[in-house]
């Protein structure tokens, strides 16, 4: 049997795993009795279980805060793990992150504290001089009900300045991690389930053909929940995270190519310079630990009707490259989705890459996300609009919506009706009616059907106000009182 190998507190751990869907948090709390990491929700929403994972990123070490509650244990293979118990010095003295939390009253009941400490540790090592926004982002995946966060933010500021800096032996750790690197994939063929972690695309393609009923696992931010919340049993899992080709990002004349195992954090960082209009939505998309673990490929493959990346990507004519065995094919992203949680992929077929075309000239683009809480809330509606004008006439328009149908969806009728039209108030008013007719959204706890319909139409109007020829409004000047529809 193959052992899962990783580094914990500088020491190499080799363990035989009985159930590959056992979570990292279960392993820590039950097997190792390292009970500092807490379970607050078991679905990656509260951050009480946050741990730090380090892996090589080129020549440097990269630290990522992730939710241990939804990470499957074998995905740790080849990485270094830090938990709250890793921090204290041998003489019992606290790490600056911890001491700063004590001194600034950042811990009250203490239940969320270990998770905060670990998010802060990743920040401490990744960013030597964070701004308030960086601190907010680093803490965005951790909920606290006692402190109102202020004392924790203060602790973050002071952990750099008030205490002697503590560095890790990164050179040594890199050397250890290099030794763990695998040239070939590994498989755990266990009674409870099979787990495969290929390292090349060819291996993966072959494996998936052999085991088409296996569950593909990338970041685990959705699949993890199926196991922890829905108690689903996964007889076989194929993990993409170690496949070198799928971890690649390519930027060239052909556009941006994002491998299916690239994390949301890295994908967004790559896309935003080309499409800055997506910046705000990406910042509000999930918490940092979820973006650190979750992948763009996973978001797209899952195809949730309320996922935010699909409307944005559809608006800029993104294609997906699928692979089955040694066969490749590409299709427009919108064609991937057939019906609620059903897609066009065949048995044994998987997403290899997401291909975003180069930005076209004179593209007018916006992406709007509406939700209850501004940051990291699941959208009631997410709408992306991309427009090109020929003079003042619509030569090309793409409207893509989330939260409005059983799948993320374009609005072909409305788009068609706009082609060639003069981009003016009356055209847009007509198109708003068309949009309302074209979609029949659901009412749920995030929003009513009526609100979704109206908001979507109004977002089109807002897009118009921000793009109308000659008198486009700055987005801060758009006034709702002008919208009377």
């Amino acid at each position, binding site marked *: 049997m193959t052992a899962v190998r990783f580094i914990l507190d500088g020491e190499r751990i080799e363990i035989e795993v009985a159930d590959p869907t056992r979570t990292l948090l279960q392993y820590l709390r039950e097997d190792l009795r390292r009970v500092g990491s807490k379970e607050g929700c*078991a*679905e990656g929403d509260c951050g009480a279980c946050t741990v730090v994972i380090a892996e090589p990123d080129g020549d440097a070490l990269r630290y990522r805060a992730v939710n241990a509650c939804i990470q499957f244990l074998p995905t740790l293979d080849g990485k270094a793990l830090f938990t709250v118990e890793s921090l204290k010095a041998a003489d019992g003295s606290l790490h600056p992150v911890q001491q700063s939390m004590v001194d600034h009253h950042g811990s009250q009941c203490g239940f969320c504290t270990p998770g905060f400490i670990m998010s802060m540790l990743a920040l401490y090592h990744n960013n030597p001089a964070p701004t308030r926004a960086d601190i907010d982002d680093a803490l965005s995946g951790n909920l*606290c*009900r006692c402190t109102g966060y202020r004392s924790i933010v203060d602790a973050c500021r002071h952990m750099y300045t008030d205490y002697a800096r503590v560095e890790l032996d990164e050179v040594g750790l890199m050397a250890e991690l290099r030794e763990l690197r695998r040239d070939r994939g590994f498989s755990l063929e266990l009674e409870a389930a099979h787990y495969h972690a290929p390292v090349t695309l060819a291996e993966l393609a072959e494996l998936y053909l052999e085991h088409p009923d296996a569950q593909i696992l990338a970041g685990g931010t959705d699949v993890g929940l199926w196991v922890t919340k829905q108690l689903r049993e996964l007889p076989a899992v194929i993990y993409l995270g170690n496949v070198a080709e799928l971890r690649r990002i390519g930027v060239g004349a052909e556009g941006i190519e994002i491998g299916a195992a690239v994390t949301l954090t890295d994908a967004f960082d790559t896309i935003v310079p080309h499409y800055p209009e997506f910046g705000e939505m990406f910042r509000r998309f999930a918490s940092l630990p979820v973006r650190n673990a979750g992948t763009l490929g996973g978001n797209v493959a899952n195809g949730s009707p309320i996922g935010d990346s699909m409307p944005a990507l559809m608006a800029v004519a993104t294609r997906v490259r699928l692979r089955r065995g040694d066969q490749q094919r590409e299709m427009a992203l919108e064609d991937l989705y057939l019906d609620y949680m059903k897609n066009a992929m065949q048995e044994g077929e998987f997403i290899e890459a997401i291909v975003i075309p180069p930005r076209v000239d004179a593209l007018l683009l916006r992406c*709007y996300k509406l939700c*209850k809480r501004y940051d990291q809330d699941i959208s009631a509606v997410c709408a992306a609009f991309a427009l090109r004008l020929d003079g003042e006439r619509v030569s090309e328009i793409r409207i893509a919506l989330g939260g409005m149908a059983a799948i993320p969806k374009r609005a072909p009728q409305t788009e068609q009706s706009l082609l060639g039209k003069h981009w003016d108030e009356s055209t847009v008013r007509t198109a708003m009616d068309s949009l309302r007719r074209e979609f029949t959204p659901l009412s749920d706890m995030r*929003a009513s059907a009526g*609100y979704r319909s109206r908001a979507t139409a109004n977002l089109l109007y807002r897009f118009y106000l921000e793009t109308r020829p000659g008198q486009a409004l700055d987005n801060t000047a758009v006034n709702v009182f002008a919208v009377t529809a």
Partner: protein
Amino acid sequence: MNHISTSLPILDGYDKVSGRLCFTEDMKLEGLLHAKLIFSSVAHATIKHIDIEAARAVPGVIGIFHHGNTPGNTYNSTIWFEGQEAPEDETMFPGVLRHIGDRVAAVIAETQEIADKAVRLIEVEYDRLPAVFDAFAARDLCEEMASSDQKSIFEKPVNETTFDYGNTRAAFDRADLIVEDTVTTPKTHHCAMENHVCVAMPEADGRILILTPCQSIFAVQFVVARAIGVPASQLRVVKTPIGGSFGGKAEPVLDPLCAWFAKTLERPVTIAFSRAETFTATRTRCKAIGYIQTAVNRDGRILARDTDVLIDVGAYCTGGIFLPESMAQRLCRIYNIENQHYRGRSFYTNTLPSGAYRGYGSPQIHAISEINLDHVARRLGMDPVKFRLKNLISPNDVDPVTGLGLGNARIRDCVEQGSVHFDWGNRWSAGSTEGRRKRGVGMACATHINGCFPGFHEATTATLRVREDGGLDLTCALHDLGCGSNTVLAQIIAEVLDISPLSIVFSEVDTEICDYDLGTRASRMTYIAGEAVRRTAEKLKLQIFAMASLELNCAATDLFITDGRVFCGDRRDSSISLGELAAREADRDRSLSTTETYRASANPGSYAAHFAEVEVDTLTGAVQVVDYLAVHDLGRAINPQLVEGQIHGGVQMGMGFALFEDIDIDVDNGRVKGDRFSRYHLVNAPEMPLVKVLLVEKHEPTGPYGAKAVGEIATIPPAPAIVNAINHALDTNLTELPVTPERIIGALSPTG
């Protein structure tokens, strides 16, 4: 002596940041069994049939409990002591299920995984009964049933409280203006980061030991005894570290079951709720719908007020019987209104039960009254601060409900200082700007109590003993809920005896060793327990001096303590340490210790005024709180940073109450829609404004070193202050909480 007004870090900070603090779920216990509950999937039903055979056959399943094989003793989980009365309508496993999430059965197994799997094999058939999901429907049902013979407990109001003083009708007749509003507040959840959890185990002598993160070990003991039908003496309860409570763990929800399982199976058993179970099968803040009318003179003097509140307590009474009255009490301790009428009625609905929650009715009644007061000011064309200042009470005014003095009530100072600090006048009159994002300012006042006096036997007993190492042992049922109350109490004792607060060892909170205490509730820790330990320390000091005067041959009046040593006047060479004194007492087979009971005889008000500035995105309805000032009259801040932490946390909770939080009962079937953090939104770090805190420290004579409570009140004014700011920004009159983007957009474009 310099331990008061210093920001000592919490005593167990090291344990918390190192991950060493052992919460209930972190304990390793030999032979521990795990429970998994099955909950009603329908809102109101009897159980027609329950099939447990398949679950029983699963290897590792040790026991299955349900209505058919458990005691049907009724109890009320909010009762704290013998003799306190409230309707007893709860049972461990009820025969009639009253809400989705009500308990149907439990599987106990060797591991959690086995229990989780086995519970899915249980099949339940229901006979459905008609159900009501809101207070209006419940009220109508009650009125309908009033003339019928059928009088089940479920079909009459839980309680009704009215009070009347002055002549409200007559005052309404002569008013220049009457402004009425209906304000609705949602059912919200505590969201302590630690879910509900409990452990129970048989002890060698046959008694049951309950280890539980709770707010009162004696309440747990009482309720469990009642529920499982054993004398309290058969139960020993020990409080474990608690990962937040906010009232959510004030009522023993799991403890009766856990104790029964352990007693029956003669093994240690744990029940550990998941997040969804904590959301759907514990307690909430009750929903309140307040119809309020305020009558004023043109010059802004309030002549009269009439308030009618419908309270939805959910499926079980719990504290619902006390809510109408406690809301009344909070309503009448802040403005001088000569004519008031109030009626509060609480009703059952087929939704999850409400219970204690930080502020106990106060956030709701203040939302109702303070949103209405801003509406009045708007109609009068008057600055809401000036309007309030015309009507606020003054120090030593009297509470018209209880007839007791309000103490050194400094709400006026809060409003006056706060409005200067916030530059209120200019910001309010500037009005909102043109354009997409509109800004507005709002403020709200609030009051809260200090302890339970005169309602219950409000007393705390503490024992202090000097150890031979010079430190102190404190024995008292002090339930630190994570707010740092033990740190504050240590500072108070340290101040009296001039020792290091770190040398004080707090006893376990254990029914075996502690005297009876109401526990941590009703904002009583600093004010009541603080005064109790202060008096105990003072008494111990007299005892120390009596002994030291013999040992040092010095008049007791010349003695003083510095840094753990007793000195005689200015004879620096003549001193004895507290530890040596204790050792000499030990040689005489005595201990240097004292016990003192403090009974409260006052209940002053704590006060606060909060000021908020919001920016509302009129296009999306999103609200950002951009500036915030919290001003608190708390007598004296024993530990200023802990006080600030309480206030910041209170604002986080109150802001959620204003903008996001709602467990959101599905009106079609009674299901809780907000049952996870992705659907029930807490304010997170990026949403949180930079909250400024201003403390009014004017000394409350009855409090320890002049201190009053701050923990609960901090969460009361944020919601009305923020809603008032939104209404100021948009010139709307939004009164339904939470004020979500959808509601804001609805109010801005009523044409729909």
